[in-house]
């Protein structure tokens, strides 16, 4: 058995176990952390396929950004896991049906008999082959327009999400930083020129002699 095969089995076992724990863990924070573990191992599996850009992007985007925000939300909510589990047995048949359908579809795709997988040229990569460079070349030449359209759609989605959740609260006491910076000293404080000491009247001075 090749060393890579051993690695494959280790990573895939951990992935499957972690994925199972995501749905069986009692604590939602633990579930989210198991999902992180599953992502990590999937990235390792992709690395075995020499898709290093996809693997590292998966870690960077999903583990490094998406799951962190996910954890934030899960940690701050007080989720009652018993209430979430109430409908489990009612929903099980439908869920199982969807799951079986997905397994069947994946099997059809992966067995490759109907998709001409056998006709693909054998992978013969030169030593200095860079996955990232090839991907970038494809994205910015052959698929330039779909790529641009996808990015514009994403941008619209970002702005829409911000606009949908943006609301100004009436009880908010925060100040606009620009107003804070624009404040001049004379707006806040009036400086009065005064003599440092008052001269005694001449008559009083004479009496004091």
């Amino acid at each position, binding site marked *: 058995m090749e060393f890579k095969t051993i690695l494959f089995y280790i990573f895939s076992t951990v992935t499957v176990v972690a994925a199972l724990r995501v749905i069986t863990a009692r*604590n939602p*924070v*633990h579930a989210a*952390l198991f999902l*992180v573990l599953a992502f990590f191992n999937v990235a390792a599996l992709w690395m075995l396929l020499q898709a*290093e*850009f996809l693997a*590292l*992007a998966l*870690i*960077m985007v999903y*583990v*490094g*950004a998406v799951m*962190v925000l996910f*954890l*934030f939300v899960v*940690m701050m909510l007080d989720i009652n896991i018993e209430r979430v589990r109430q409908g489990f047995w009612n929903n099980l048949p439908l869920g199982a049906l969807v799951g079986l359908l997905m397994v069947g579809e994946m099997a059809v795709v992966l067995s490759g008999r109907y998709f001409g997988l056998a006709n693909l040229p054998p992978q013969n990569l030169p030593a200095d082959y*860079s*996955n*990232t460079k090839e991907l970038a070349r494809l994205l910015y030449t052959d698929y330039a327009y779909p790529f641009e359209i996808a990015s514009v759609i994403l941008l619209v989605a970002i702005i829409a999400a911000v606009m949908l959740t943006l609301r100004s609260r009436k009880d908010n006491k925060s100040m606009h*930083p620009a107003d804070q910076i624009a404040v001049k000293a004379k707006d806040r404080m009036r400086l009065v020129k005064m003599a440092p000491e008052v001269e005694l009247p001449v008559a009083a001075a004479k009496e004091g002699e």
Partner: protein
Amino acid sequence: MEAAVVSFVEPLLGSFWGSIKPVWPLIWTLLRIVLILVPLLLSVAYLTFWERKVIGWMQVRIGPNRVGPWGLLQPIADGLKLFLKEIIFPTAADKKLFVLGPILAIAPALALWAAIPFSPGWVLANVDAGVLYLLAVGSVGVYGIIIAGWASNSKFPFFGAMRASAQMISYEISMGLALITVLMVSSSLNLTEIVVGQSKGLFAGMGVGFLSWNWLPLLPMFGVYLISGVAETNRAPFDVVEGESEIVAGHMVEYSGMSFAMFFLAEYANMILISAMVSIFFLGGWLSPVGFLPDGFHWMAAKMAAVLFFFLWIRATFPRYRYDQIMRLGGFWWWASG
């Protein structure tokens, strides 16, 4: 280098060599890992000493001078003290995650060193997508903080973790944006090639190589990267993670002994890492600044030391930022300029 070591080890082991040969690549990798980690941990220890000395001098104090000659054994004494202290588990803490927190904080900080080249060929893994690796594994470090804050099951650590991770995530983005310009200039994700790319140029041909390094053509991005690096490692003046008068020690409140030391080690290892990355991306790595002096690891070390000194210098000089000002600075100015 490997061939030289093999030819030295082979006669030494004699007949044992046959049984060792199949696992030799593993042993060789482990040896190199030790060769990187031991100096790294030593420099972490002495960075704390140097920090206290430098800040002491800048503030007209003496700094540590009691333990050993010139106080040189101070970090050893500190380490021993932390090592011998008891690790206290809060009653309400999630025990497993409480242990996992510090581990996840330090593991990425050490794992990142695998891709850092110190000199031509002196690198544990000369990966093609080195920059991506640094960004990806670097983004995992935030989990240590979040998990520690949550697992402690108490208010201050939780708020501290929120602050720290929000700050780290937003500054990671500006660091990434600054790196994109470096990638565009050097058109490679390989760290060694990024350094080699800086050795060519108009000024390098004239013998003043330091003007050909990325810092000059990418000067604004150099500034963004350096300042974001300070914020990313939660150092002063952006050290709002800790604050005696507001959130005490942030996510580390409930940690004691070695588990606290792990966070401490991770912070300093990350500082050294940022200095290494600044030297590689912007200051020409191991390249010599002038033509008539040879390149080598000593230049890399000198540049890292200079960047680390900058870290300590600004800590002694600037007052802290207010938290909302940090987030505004990171979220608005650095992203926009990136």
